[in-house]
């Protein structure tokens, strides 16, 4: 029984994007494609326990979804007398023989449509997780702490806009491609980050479902666009963060900082894959292809995950990478992280001076106060440190991080 459920889940995960993507191209209707794919999965849940898992679960789901789509079009056509669409689908064999590459192109089209810049960012995230990731509306609603009604409306509105404004279902033109790929990667990074450090009081501090989904979709885009350096960089970044997942929260539910994590428990397979990708991009950089933001962030993570002991961390290398990152991403958050490297090299006093310069822009960001608190603690300025911890705790959303900050504050002399 558990095996059957696992088989349904696996087939659903593996085939969902393909099914929705192909059906959308064939009938030009995201809604119909989504409903048919969902019905096929529901039918599998219903029938596989009794009838057994079919020899090729993916093909079974695809065929069933295509039949459901045809049924639906027929029902609708009876009302308005059109026969064209059902005919188009019906003429094709049940499991369509596509030219090689066509299916990958379909999934890419779907991803680009869901991440279209004419849609608001929350809509892009929700639509991507639903249409490409195959997550259900309740699952996505839970992940982003909104009600199912709100999330459902967000998706419905986005689909309606795609239809009404005619957001095209195709891979963008070559001149638009870099900007559009950046948009897709931004959505995937957002999904990953929400999983990496979940913001809600009612959720697990680390949402494995979201990080896994983001990695899966980034792998997909990496497969589809193997030449894209930033796709490789983002995948490496995610893998190197995911490798540390089990060591990031203690048994008592407290966040464990990088220097205190049990490095022997890091996932060596993920680290090896991440390092391989980073090396691939370093080779490209040596050949004159300037790395983007994700590639540099991945390289920083590679330096951390290369150190067997936190004391062996090559901070000079990390600082050099932040200096390379700042012109590409001149955000105060990058400057804050750079200051943490400065603290290791030049001491907390120098670092505190750089951090204090960010006050105007980061006053509402918990990590700013947490960093200050730590630097002040190291300088023996306990009272100021305590005040900074208080502020950080007020602003932090992640339960494990709040637990960590609270303990550090209470340990102050």
């Amino acid at each position, binding site marked *: 029984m558990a095996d059957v459920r696992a088989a349904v889940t696996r087939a659903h995960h593996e085939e969902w994007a393909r099914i929705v993507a192909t059906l959308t191209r064939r009938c030009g209707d995201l809604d119909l494609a989504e409903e048919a794919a969902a019905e096929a999965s529901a039918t599998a849940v219903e029938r596989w326990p009794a009838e057994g898992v079919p020899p090729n679960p993916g093909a079974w789901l695809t065929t069933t979804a295509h039949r459901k789509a045809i049924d639906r079009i027929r029902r609708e056509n009876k009302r308005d007398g059109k026969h064209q669409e059902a005919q188009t689908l019906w003429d094709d064999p049940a499991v369509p023989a596509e030219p090689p590459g066509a299916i990958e192109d379909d999934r890419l089209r779907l991803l680009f449509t869901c991440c*279209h810049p004419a849609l608001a960012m929350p809509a892009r995230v929700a639509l991507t997780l639903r249409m490409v990731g195959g997550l259900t509306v309740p699952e996505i609603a839970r992940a982003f702490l909104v009600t199912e009604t709100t999330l459902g409306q967000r998706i419905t509105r986005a689909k309606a806009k795609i239809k*009404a*404004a*005619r*957001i*095209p279902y195709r891979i963008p*033109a070559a001149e*638009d491609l870099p900007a559009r790929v950046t948009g897709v990667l931004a959505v995937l990074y957002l999904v990953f980050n929400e999983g990496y450090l979940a913001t809600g009081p009612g959720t697990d501090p680390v949402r494995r479902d979201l990080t896994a989904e983001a990695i899966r979709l980034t792998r997909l885009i990496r497969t589809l666009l193997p030449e894209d350096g930033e796709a490789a960089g983002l995948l490496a970044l995610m893998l190197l963060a995911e490798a540390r997942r089990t060591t990031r929260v203690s048994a008592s539910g407290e966040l464990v900082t990088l220097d205190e994590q049990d490095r022997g428990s890091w996932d060596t397979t993920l680290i090896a894959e991440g390092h391989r990708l980073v090396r691939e991009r370093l080779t490209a950089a040596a050949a004159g292809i300037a790395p983007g933001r994700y590639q540099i962030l991945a390289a920083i993570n590679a330096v951390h995950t290369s150190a067997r002991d936190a004391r062996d961390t090559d901070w000079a290398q990390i600082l050099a990478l932040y200096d390379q990152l700042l012109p590409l991403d001149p955000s105060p958050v990058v400057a804050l992280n750079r200051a943490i490297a400065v603290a290791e090299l030049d001491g907390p006093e120098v670092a505190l001076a750089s951090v204090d310069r960010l006050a105007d822009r980061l006053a509402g960001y918990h990590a700013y106060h947490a960093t200050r608190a730590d630097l002040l603690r190291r300088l023996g300025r306990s009272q100021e440190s305590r005040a900074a911890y208080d502020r950080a705790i007020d602003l932090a959303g992640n339960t494990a991080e709040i637990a960590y900050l609270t303990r550090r504050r209470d340990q102050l002399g």
Partner: protein
Amino acid sequence: MRYLVSVIDDKSNPGSTDRQPAINAFNERLIAEGYWVFAGGLAGTDAATVIDNRGEQAMVTDGPFVESKEYLAGIWVWEVPDLDVALTLAAEASKACDRKIEVRPFS
């Protein structure tokens, strides 16, 4: 697919007034590429009149239907294959007339 392309100006921060040559050149390109359906600049909102004849008799009001800092300064109607084409052209249009552009499909 037809789109209404609205030029949005801002009373407190108006776009520059020397854009006509750039707009003319852009219009000629729209015509040459077959996207142009209609275009027109509008007189100021002070020149607008609102009529409401849903009741017993027609009510005539001086001024636009909504007073706002931002207002419609002109329109295009384009016939293009999809939103991507419309948005690419709109980016050029915004440069040409030094104002914000809203792209909205006809239903």
